[in-house]
């Protein structure tokens, strides 16, 4: 419906980075240590929640996004029991987790894709098509 030339044009005007990338990166760094600890204690749901919380979706800096993806990826790959991971995860994390699952599928890495696809099936069962539609539609909060 939007004009070819206009599509996304409104996306980029008036965009200001809310905070410097360095600060975001430091925070993710600290977060990753805590996440590691939780993984060692086999508290996967807590680790995942922590990894998903405060994800740098608003920034345009790819370094921040990649750094957080590495943390989320670490938890996803460490988890064996996906059923219990999802059943203990509150629904408010559904949308953000789904975004990371698609990021994982985009990597093309076989084990990552396998894991993301398994989780995708279970998450879709729970969160429905609405969740997928939301993450496909959202062009502002990208992971």
């Amino acid at each position, binding site marked *: *419906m*939007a004009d070819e030339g206009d599509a996304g044009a409104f996306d980029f005007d008036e965009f200001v980075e809310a905070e410097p990338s360095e600060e975001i990166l430091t925070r993710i760094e600290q977060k990753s240590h805590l996440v590691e600890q939780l993984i060692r204690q086999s508290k996967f749901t807590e680790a995942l929640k922590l990894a998903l919380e405060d994800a740098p979706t608003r920034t345009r800096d790819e370094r921040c996004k990649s750094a957080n993806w590495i943390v989320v990826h670490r938890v996803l790959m460490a988890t064996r029991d996906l059923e219990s991971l999802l059943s203990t995860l509150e629904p408010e994390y559904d949308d953000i987790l789904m975004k990371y699952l698609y990021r994982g599928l985009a990597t093309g890495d076989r084990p990552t894709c396998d894991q993301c696809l398994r989780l995708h099936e279970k998450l879709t069962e729970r*969160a*429905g*098509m*609405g969740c997928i*539609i*939301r993450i496909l539609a959202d062009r502002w909060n990208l992971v």
Partner: protein
Amino acid sequence: MAVVSSHQLAQCISCHAWNADLSMVAVCPNNNEVHIYKALSFTDSIWDRVHVLRKHDQLVSSIDWAPESNYIVTASHDRNSYVWNLEQDEWQPTLVILRLNRAAISVKWSPKENKFAVASGAKSICVCYYEQDNNWWVSKIIRKKHNSTVTNISWHPNNVLLATTSTDCKCRVFSAYIKGVDARTDAETAFGEVKFGEQLMQLDLAMGWAFGVKWSPSGKTLTYVGHDSTIHFIGDVGPSPIAQTLALRDLPLRDVLFLSERRIVAAGFDCNPILFEADNQGTWNLIRFLDEGKLPPAETKTGTQFLEAFGKFHGQAKHGNNIEIVESSNISNTHHENCITSLRPPSKLGDDAHKILPSKEPPCSKVSSSSKFQLQRMIAPLLSRGDKEVHYFSTSGLDGKIIIWDVSNISEFVSRLRL
């Protein structure tokens, strides 16, 4: 909460509108024509096509039928509008030059019917009014603010404020006050005194294209839907609004309709209207899907467990002892077989309402149902005095069907849910 009747009028319907007494319906069968059908009451009646309005060159995107003046206004992708007036059984068109360079998408008469507004792909909205001296409809354009196609518009009951949704994912409120057309006192709104074309509010709640905006009957609440499968409710529209967003479990919605101040029906790609209701604190919740052909209800993420459980229970009971409904439902299990794009309130339901309603329900049942409603009101006072409740509404969609829904027993149902 049932389907009263379903009518296959075309392969695909782009829009439809009812006349004041609901004896006629204007339908665009997804081309440049508007077909007017005489609507009959029987459930399986075949509606007669009585008029065909041919004037547009391209797809008619929207129709609105003014209940008082009986004028029809149409908007089309050919960038023009026509106002149609019935003279001696012939619909006479008057061209309205909108001065747009992109398609007209949606058109709505203002509540007083002295103006109409057109949403367009030219990132602008036109407000048109009749100039007596020139015998001519004049179009004033609001070009500011929209960054993309305007998909839908809704008039505030005060005849001045105009809400728009757009594919830049935002919902906005503008002033459509026109000096000389509106009384000077009309310029005074919840936003203070307003001038033409002023943007009064911008809502940035949806993360996808925004569609289907509506004001509540009082104009205090505004609601719109997003293509990211969300629905947004804005209470106390004015300087300090309160916003609430519900994320849905299923596919996105396309259009919304207020049944009353606290009840909304919304429909879209799930082919199944959904009922939303505000509780006493003003928090909106998804109550249930209305099409009983389908298993109820998928919950919203924020919906309470309690309502969910009851919804399921009710659905099973319904299926258990009402086998006909299950059998008559089609493969996709809903009455609509494709996306519902338009919801219409036969809200000006006068005494002639029975014309489109099944003959087994005589007009006198209206009296009993309204008294029942009074009773219910005492149990669950959901509406303030003087509120008008919509008992029936119609939907049209890409499957070419018009379906009429009966929600007259909804109060009863909802209060049963709450007990």
